[in-house]
């Protein structure tokens, strides 16, 4: 066998790639034409959708959602039963869905965008992906502070960023505020997940609004100093870290704690039952909350069905389900939170415009990067 200059044959492709690149051409913005449906949809249904008026039988609505809960799917079925409108679901991560809608432009199939973070709703609005909705029902069901000022998105459920602690090791009276957790006495005792997590970014974004950039940075720095371990895992893993004694206080989302208490793993339920919930900053500006919400997309083909669908989710029945089965706080003031949630007690909420969470998102992420919050 003749020996060939192997190294050369590896490098050659790379070199000619560069050469090709040099004569490449401009790849500008991503625009597109309009209204073409090109996915595996039932075309008969689509025709129906065009012919039908809102409110009548038939039709369909396409969701782009980053919420993938069984509760939601059950509600979709119920909506179809009540209205005859088919619900098609595309699930994905929120940022991914926003990217996709931007790329699809006017060709998008999505009628409703649903996500579990106010910051992402803001981002979708900023990217011109949503349209204003004028609905009496929504205005009535959803208090103003959980809605976009221009009615481009609507909050559907609330989650609080709470403390979870082990009452055997931490006395409730020692807990007070998010800020207090940066004190020296909490060194090596705090559990919280990575900064790439959107709920942490939104928490940080709210602090930038309330305290200003400098104090927010100091807070993040203080938390990093007091972390019991490098951030790892999801919200549920933080509570498990308290149960296992790796740390004493976990900062996590309320609804994940509800999930743990109702887990299909018996041992997880046992672990969670030994822990307690605390709502921080009650004497100050209130506990940080975030919302799950929905908006009607700018270019979706079934806007009327979309509005109907969101109205349905803001109704008492759906709101009750969100609270009972998914442990989220309802936004509809006529609906009581589930018993489990009530057992944790009432709490004051951070009173800021939720749009802020989106506006300050990038800054929040960068500040956390700068103080070394992994």
């Amino acid at each position: 066998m003749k020996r060939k200059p192997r190294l050369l044959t590896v490098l050659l492709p790379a070199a000619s790639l560069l050469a090709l690149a040099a004569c490449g051409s401009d790849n500008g913005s991503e625009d597109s034409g309009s209204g073409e449906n090109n996915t595996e949809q039932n075309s008969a249904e689509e025709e129906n959708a065009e012919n039908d008026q809102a409110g009548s039988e038939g039709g369909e609505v396409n969701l782009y959602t980053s919420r993938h809960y069984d509760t939601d799917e059950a509600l979709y079925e119920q909506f179809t039963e009540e209205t005859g409108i088919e619900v098609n679901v595309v699930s994905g991560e929120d940022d991914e869905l926003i990217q996709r809608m931007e790329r699809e432009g006017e060709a998008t199939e999505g009628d409703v965008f649903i996500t579990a973070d106010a910051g992402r709703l803001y981002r979708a609005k900023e990217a011109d992906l949503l349209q204003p909705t004028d609905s009496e029902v929504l205005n009535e069901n959803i208090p103003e502070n959980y809605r976009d000022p221009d009615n481009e998105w609507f909050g559907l459920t609330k989650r609080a960023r709470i403390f979870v602690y082990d009452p055997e090791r931490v006395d409730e009276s020692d807990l007070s505020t998010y800020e207090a957790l940066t004190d020296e006495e909490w060194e090596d005792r705090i559990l919280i997940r990575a900064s790439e997590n959107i709920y942490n970014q939104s928490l940080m974004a709210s602090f930038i609004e309330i305290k200003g950039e400098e104090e927010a940075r100091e807070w993040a720095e203080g938390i990093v100093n007091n972390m019991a371990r490098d951030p790892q895992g999801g919200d549920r893993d933080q509570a498990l870290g308290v149960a296992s004694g790796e740390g004493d206080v976990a900062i996590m989302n309320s609804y994940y704690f509800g999930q743990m208490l109702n887990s299909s793993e018996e041992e997880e339920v046992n672990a969670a039952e030994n822990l307690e919930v605390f709502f921080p900053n009650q004497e100050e500006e209130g506990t940080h909350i975030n919302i799950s919400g929905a908006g009607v997309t700018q270019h979706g083909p079934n806007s009327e069905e979309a509005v109907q669908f969101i109205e349905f989710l803001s109704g008492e029945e759906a709101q009750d389900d969100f609270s009972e089965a998914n442990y989220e706080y309802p936004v509809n003031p006529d609906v009581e939170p589930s018993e489990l949630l009530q057992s944790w007690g009432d709490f004051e909420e951070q009173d800021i415009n939720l749009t802020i969470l989106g506006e300050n998102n990038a800054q929040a992420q960068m500040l956390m990067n700068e103080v070394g919050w992994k």
Partner: protein
Amino acid sequence: MPFFKSPSAAALGWGSGAAGFVILLLLPLSFLLYRMIQPAGENWAHIQEYLLLGYTIDTLTLAVIVGILSIALGTTLAWLVSAYSFPFRNTLKWALLMPLAIPPYIGGYAYHGMVNYTGFVQRTLRNTFDIEVSQRYFDIMNIPGAVFIFTIFLYPYVYAITRAFFARQATTLIENARVLGSGPVRTFFRIVLPVSRAAIVGGVTLVMLEVLNDYGLVSYFGVQTFSTAIFQTWYALDDLDSAIRLAGILMGLVLVFLVLEKVFRGRRQYSYSSAKVSPLKPRELEGWKKWSTLGFCGTVLLLGFILPMVQLLYWGMLTYEAVFSAQFVSLVRNSTLASGISSLLVVVFAVIVANFTRIVPGWLSTITARFTVLGYSIPGAVIAVGVLSFFIYIEQRLQFFYAFSGISSGLVLSTSLVMLIFAYVIRFMAVGYNSIESGFEKVGRRYSEASRTLGMGWLQTFFKVDLPMIRAAVFSGFILVFVDILKELPLTLILRPFNFETLATTAYRYASDERIQETAVPSLAIILVSGAAMYIFHIFIEKEPN
């Protein structure tokens, strides 16, 4: 240089097919390079100052340590099952390949479930034995944890390649060493390792490329590598330009690894010391040696396959009712559809290119072959970025044509399965190509030349003479590609069309929703198909006389 001297009809025919494919393959990659030399995105300075070093260190640490440990584990196991005889050896021979059927991200889900505070291990210690062991010793969602997961599920690359080498090529050397009185340890380190260096390096390169390509495990564990960074900058920071730069740096790392591979493979060749190549005769092990060898191999199998499978089956039983619905059928259909079409295309292209390099040897075909297998060394996230920019560019240019012909007035290609399949073909071409190339190598050129001399046309020759002879290689290439695509995550996540979920994306989605038990059913489906394919493949290889 025969190609330029007298281009025969066959050379031209196969050559233009091969050239067409290579051009198609290079276009999206050249887009990437072009965009890389554009001004940086708005976040680049921030990424460079605070994050880049961390990404680089974590990525390199993972790849290098996993590489070293895979060599240790893979070669040791290959040596034990090749050179010694002990109970269950024949079963272990193929069973030790099985961890490869579990993609690292699924292995990570299972292990996190096993060792977290409420997992099987701690639960048993706590409730059955009343022992409290600090959870700190069991935390797995960190770099050492990721190293363990990658090693235990990827070592079979090294194991498979080196074992095949021991069995066929190293026999006489090893037996001579034994006859001349060299002890087992000395034989292993002085003879076996040096002669099989090329095989080991080949295997470990695959392992490291897999580590660099991984997105599922590192994103679940929260380890910051280039893959996660590309996704994050692109999606969360909405900064495609910075993401492309990160992709470029990652490609740079890959190139370094590939150059190192060439260097470490070395130029030394060990020829057979006799013409007859016979399988290595295993030595019977006795007493404690026998049992500890069995124990060692058994432990690896336990960790790399049995334990995670038990965990997944347990979760599967808890959740199958919720997951196993009509939707599940569509997941299976989507997965098989995408993998099937792509594997078929890979095989067709691979046959064209491999046939071209066979008929027209020389530097041109060497380069063509190199380009063809390039995609396998490019991490999925990087290919995805390139392919997506490419399709958007093309589609903008096609708007006029769409409107003119009335096909549509919007996006066609970039919202369809075409884009994903295109990316799969680029990424997994090498897998099919290597299999088919080796098929052609065994057949050689004599038969087709005879056929041509006897007056058959070049296409006719191909279909009547060549293709039937490489049938087996084509089949095995298809299976290997199919399994790889079934497990694939980053490309699928980025490029899949509207409403298109696969088994892999579903498992991933459940995991990122912290609903880990629900990942079991789709995961088991993937493992089942991969496992079955690998078993068939093993039988196939073992039966092959040489």
